[in-house]
C-alpha cells in the first residue's frame, strides 16, 4: 500500500509542483507576454469549445491522419520492394539518402506551387515528411529478416502472398513501428507548419492568428491544445503498438529474463 502511494506521489508530484509554480509565479503578473495561468485556463473552454474544436482541430487531425496513413502504406510497400532486392537498394540508396536529408518543411513552398494552398497540399506535405522514416526502417527491417525463416518459407513453397503476410511483414514490424513513431512526430510538426503558411482553418492557423492579433491568453491555450494533442497521439500510438507487437514485446521481455 505504502509502495503504491509512493509511486503515485512520484508520478504526479513534479507535474503538480510545476503547474503550481506556473500558477503562482504568474498569478499577479501584469506582463503582457506572460498572462496569469488563471486567465489562460479561464479562456480555454470558451476559446476552443465547441466551434474551434470542430472547425480547426478536427480538420487538422483529418489531414494528419490521411497523410500519415498514405505515407504508411506507401512507405511499407516501397520499403518491402527495396529491401528485398539488393540491386534496387544499391541503385536507390544515394537518392534516398538525399531526399531524407532535405528538411521536410522546405518542401512546403514547392508543394504550394503544385497543389495550391488547400487540403491536398497539406496532406502531400505530411506524406513527403512522414514517408522517409517508415520507408528506411522497413528496408532495414526486411534486410534484417531471419535467413533461416526465409529459406524455410521458400522450401515449403509458401506463396508470395503468404510469405509477405506471415514472414516479411511480421518480421519487419518492430522496425516499421519504430519508423512510424518517428513519422508521427514529424507529421504533427508538418501539420502545424503547413497551416502556418497558408490556411483558412486548422490549429496552426488559429494559433498564429491569435499571436498576430495579440490575443495572448488564447495563444497560450492553443499551445496547450497542441501539447495535449501531441501527448494524446503518442499515447494512442503506444497502445496500438503494444497490441500489434504483443508477441515481440513479450519475446524481448522473456529474453531479458523478466
Amino acid at each position, binding site marked *: 500500500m505504502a509502495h503504491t502511494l509512493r509511486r503515485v506521489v512520484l508520478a504526479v508530484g513534479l*507535474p503538480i509542483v510545476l503547474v503550481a509554480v506556473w500558477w503562482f509565479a504568474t498569478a499577479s503578473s501584469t506582463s503582457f*507576454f506572460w498572462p496569469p495561468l488563471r486567465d489562460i485556463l479561464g479562456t480555454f473552454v470558451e476559446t476552443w469549445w465547441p466551434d474551434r474544436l470542430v472547425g480547426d482541430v478536427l480538420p487538422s487531425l483529418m489531414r494528419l491522419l490521411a497523410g500519415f496513413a498514405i505515407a504508411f502504406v506507401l512507405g511499407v510497400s516501397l520499403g518491402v520492394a527495396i529491401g528485398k532486392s539488393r540491386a534496387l537498394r544499391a541503385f536507390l*540508396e544515394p*537518392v534516398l539518402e538525399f531526399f531524407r536529408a532535405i*528538411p521536410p518543411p522546405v518542401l512546403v513552398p514547392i508543394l504550394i506551387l503544385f497543389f495550391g494552398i488547400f487540403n491536398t497540399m497539406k496532406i502531400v506535405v505530411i506524406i513527403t515528411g512522414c514517408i522517409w522514416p517508415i520507408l528506411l526502417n522497413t*528496408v532495414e527491417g526486411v534486410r534484417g529478416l531471419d535467413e533461416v525463416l526465409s529459406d524455410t518459407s521458400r522450401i515449403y513453397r509458401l506463396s508470395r502472398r503468404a510469405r509477405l503476410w506471415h514472414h516479411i511483414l511480421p518480421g519487419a514490424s518492430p522496425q516499421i513501428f519504430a*519508423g512510424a513513431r518517428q513519422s508521427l512526430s514529424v507529421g504533427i510538426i508538418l501539420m502545424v507548419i503547413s497551416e502556418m503558411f497558408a490556411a483558412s482553418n486548422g490549429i496552426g492557423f488559429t494559433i498564429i492568428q491569435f499571436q498576430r492579433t495579440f490575443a495572448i491568453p488564447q495563444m497560450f491555450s492553443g499551445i496547450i491544445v497542441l501539447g495535449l494533442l*501531441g501527448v494524446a497521439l503518442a499515447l494512442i500510438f503506444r497502445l496500438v503498438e503494444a497490441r500489434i507487437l504483443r508477441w515481440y514485446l513479450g519475446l524481448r521481455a522473456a529474453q531479458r529474463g523478466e
Partner: protein
Amino acid sequence: MMTTATTIESGERPTGSTPQRRTERHVPAGVLGALGLLTLVVVLELVPRVGLVDERFLPPFSSMVSALAQEAGTSTFWAALGATLTGWAIGLTIALVAGVVLGIVIGSIPVVRAATSSTIEFLRPIPSVALIPLAVLLWGTDMKSTLVLVIYATFWQVLLQVLYGVRDVDPVARETARSYRFSPLTTVRTVTWPTALPYVMTGFRLGAAVALILEITGELVIGTPGLGKEIGVAQSSGAVPQMYALVIVTGLIGVVVNLIARWGERRALRWHPSIRAEVG
C-alpha cells in the same frame, strides 16, 4: 550506408546497426548508386523539357544548377549559409551539454529518475513548433527565436538516449564502485560515462539531424536569418529555380551532417566492441 535513425524503445544497442554487407557480385554498389543519382538528374531535366510538368513549377535541372551557381556568387547566400550553420552548431551544443549533464544526474539518482519520468513523458511529445508563436512574440525575427526551437527539439533526443545509457550500466560495476567508495565524480567518469557513451553518440547523431531540420524550419517560418529565410524570399518573389537550388543545398547540408555525425560516432567509439567487431 543506409543506417536508420531507429530508437526502439528501452534500448536496442544503438551502435553497429549495420549488418555485414556482402559485396555485389556483378555491378559494384557504388556504380549502381551513381547510376541512381544520374537517373534522378536526367528525370529532373527531361520531365519539364518534354512538358510533362509545367516549367514554371519544376524548372529543368540545368536551370537549377545555373541558379545555384548564380547564388554562390552572392554574399547573401554565404551569409545565409553561415547563419544556418552557426545557429545549428550553437543549438546542438547547448542541447548536447544540457542533455548529457541532466541525463547523467537524473539517471544516476533513482528517486530523481522516478520523480521526473512522468514529466519527461509528457513534455517530450509536445511538438516543438508549438513554441513558434511564443518565440516570435518574445524575440521577433531574432536568431534566438529559432535557437529555442532547435534546443527544445534536440534536447529530448539527447536526454532520452543518455537516460537509456545510464540505465544500461552493469549493476556489478556500479556496486563495485560503491564498495571501493569511488566519489560520485569518479563513478561517473569511470563507470557511467563509458557505458553511456554509445548512447550519447546515438543521441548526437539523431540530434544533429533534428537540429538542422528545426533550424531551417525556424528560418523559413519565423524569418530569422539563414537559408530557410532565403527560400521564403525566393518563393515570395517567384524565383522558382533559386528556390529549388536552395532546397538542394539544404539537402546537401543534411547529407554532410549525417556523414559527419556517423564518422564522429565511429571515431568516438573506436574502442567499443560493436565497432571493433565490424572492422576486424
